């Protein structure tokens, strides 16, 4: 089984890419679970399983692909139930006004329980899934670091005992390249490139994590065009530096995947087109 996290700066197309990757893998016959962190769902605008009418076409889920929107409260109950075993104790725990308040402010508890659930298979905890791949459409860069920091944060607060040990195991799984893969999306623009470089450097330095880099929304070059009007001038100015940025990241990042700009406004159409882009390379 493999676990894949997709991250990148806000607005780079994480959800579209994660969805396309999941569809592509499911098409090759693998059993895939595609996960997003709730409470809000983006998948419901892409896949037609939800029954939400968004006014445009959606993608039917291939038979070997399932999607899940994880809900913090539910995942937290699962997490605590692992320690308290008895249902009546779990109920007592969550009914306590003290616990209700602690849970609301406990820093990074949300991030921690999501990681706990994502890695539970590797730690032989909870219900065993029957998937070849779990793909997680995760947080954007800053919040993603908070996600990765959450086990260490809890280990610092709780210095002994079951929770401490569990956090240590979660961190171990997350930093094991044989178990977890990371895709980081980036746009071929100056600021996103600078921030992505910083992000992948931090991942390497603090967690020894290496990532797969994806350049999204790459526009095709306009060559040998002599006519001058506002469109041509503007388009040339925007695309001129694309390759400079891509090369800059290729220097530190040997394998870089490029996905062209998709001229579609429907999220489902974007995903369908990205799937076609992924096919030749996988």
């Amino acid at each position, binding site marked *: 089984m493999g676990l894949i996290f997709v991250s990148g700066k806000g607005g780079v197309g994480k959800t579209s890419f994660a969805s396309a990757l999941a569809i592509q893998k499911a098409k090759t016959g693998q059993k895939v679970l595609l996960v997003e962190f709730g409470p809000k769902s983006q998948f419901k*605008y892409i896949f037609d399983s939800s029954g939400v009418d968004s006014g445009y076409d959606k993608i039917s889920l291939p038979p070997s692909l399932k999607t899940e929107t994880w809900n913090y409260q539910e995942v937290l109950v699962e997490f605590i139930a692992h320690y308290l075993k008895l249902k009546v*104790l779990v109920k007592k725990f969550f009914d306590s006004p003290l616990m209700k308040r602690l849970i609301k402010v406990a*820093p990074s508890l949300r*991030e921690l329980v999501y990681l706990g659930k994502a890695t539970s298979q590797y730690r032989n905890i909870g219900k065993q899934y029957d998937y070849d791949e779990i793909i997680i459409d995760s947080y954007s860069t800053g919040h993603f670091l908070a996600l990765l920091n959450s086990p260490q944060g809890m280990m610092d607060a709780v210095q002994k005992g079951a929770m401490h040990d569990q956090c240590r195991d979660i961190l171990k799984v997350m930093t094991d390249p044989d178990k977890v893969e990371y895709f980081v999306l980036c746009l071929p*623009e100056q600021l996103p490139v600078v921030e992505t470089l910083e992000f992948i450097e931090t991942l390497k330095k603090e967690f020894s994590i290496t990532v797969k880099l994806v350049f999204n929304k790459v526009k095709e070059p306009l060559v040998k065009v002599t006519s001058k009007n506002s469109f041509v001038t503007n388009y040339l100015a925007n695309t001129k530096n694309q390759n400079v940025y891509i090369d800059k990241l290729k220097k530190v990042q040997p394998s870089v995947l490029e996905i062209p700009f998709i001229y579609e406004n429907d999220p489902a159409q974007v995903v369908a087109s990205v799937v076609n882009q992924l096919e030749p390379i996988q």
Partner: protein
Amino acid sequence: MNIFDKKIIVCLGPGGVGKTTTSVALALKAAQEGKKCLVMTIDPSRRLSSVLNIDKVSNLEVQVAVPSLVKGQLWGKIIEPETTFKNFVLKFSNDKEQAEKLFKNVLFKQLSSTLKDSQDFTSIEALMTVVENKKYDLIILDTPPIQNLTDFFDAPENMYSLFNSAFFKIIGQTSDSQSLIKKFIGKGAQGALGLLSKVTGKQFVEELIIFFKSIEGLSLQIKNHSHSVNDLLKSKSTGYVLVTEGERSKLIEATDIYDQLSSRGYALELSVLNRCFPTWFNEKDQEKIKPDSKAFPVFNKENTFYSEKEKIIDKFCQQLDENDKVIRIPILKEINSLNDISSLADYLKV
């Protein structure tokens, strides 16, 4: 009423839509109108903070150099969560000793150092502090990306309730920490803390009890403070600006934030839609591209794409109240200087 006559503007919106840049552009516009304006943000991109020259001075209010034509003043502040939280506790503790004791508590250290993840609370708390100082005509708060508006507005209440006296009803007011520890996690203890110790180990619960003992007495002032935060966020002199992008999924999120704002009765002053269309889109020289030109296929794709996008944006605007002001911003070049922010500010005619 002109939006810049408000005392506070809160910029809200989905992640990755240029909220921080828009907040700064609004602040610059306010300064151009003669206001002394402070813009506060919690997690700015390095580029933006270096453009403003405020990158090395976390948690301080720094004046930003603006062209001499600008009548007012532009100030910037990067909110630093750990300091903000410490100041919050210092403000309410009766004596320094109590505060120092708290700062040494493992749990407190953890709470304050990982607070960068609960940015909602620290943003609002930082806002309260500058409001109390009354140094500015206008304060613009750039909020962290939110999934749920409730998370943002309830963040202070959640934090205050940690300090609230209801805790002491549970753990008892008179006992010292050691007898409390015995009572709650000793042999045969059945309560919630006993259960918690099964999850976290006893040591953690001991820390927790010591933590509560050291914040005892802060609760009343914090309760009053909590009321003033709510009053401030609801006040007529506080305005909200919704920032989003012309992309479908962002518009869906924005609709949701819009609905939540209206149902809470907060006044939306303005919606800013970033990156709606390229600058060439409204130019009249497009007929220069002939169908047999090499540029035509790409032009055609781009033109169709942005025309469709415009319809989606129109649809979004139709659902808003007809009195709501909406500004559509084209795709501008990346922000590399105050000048670039100024060209965004030029679109913000309010």
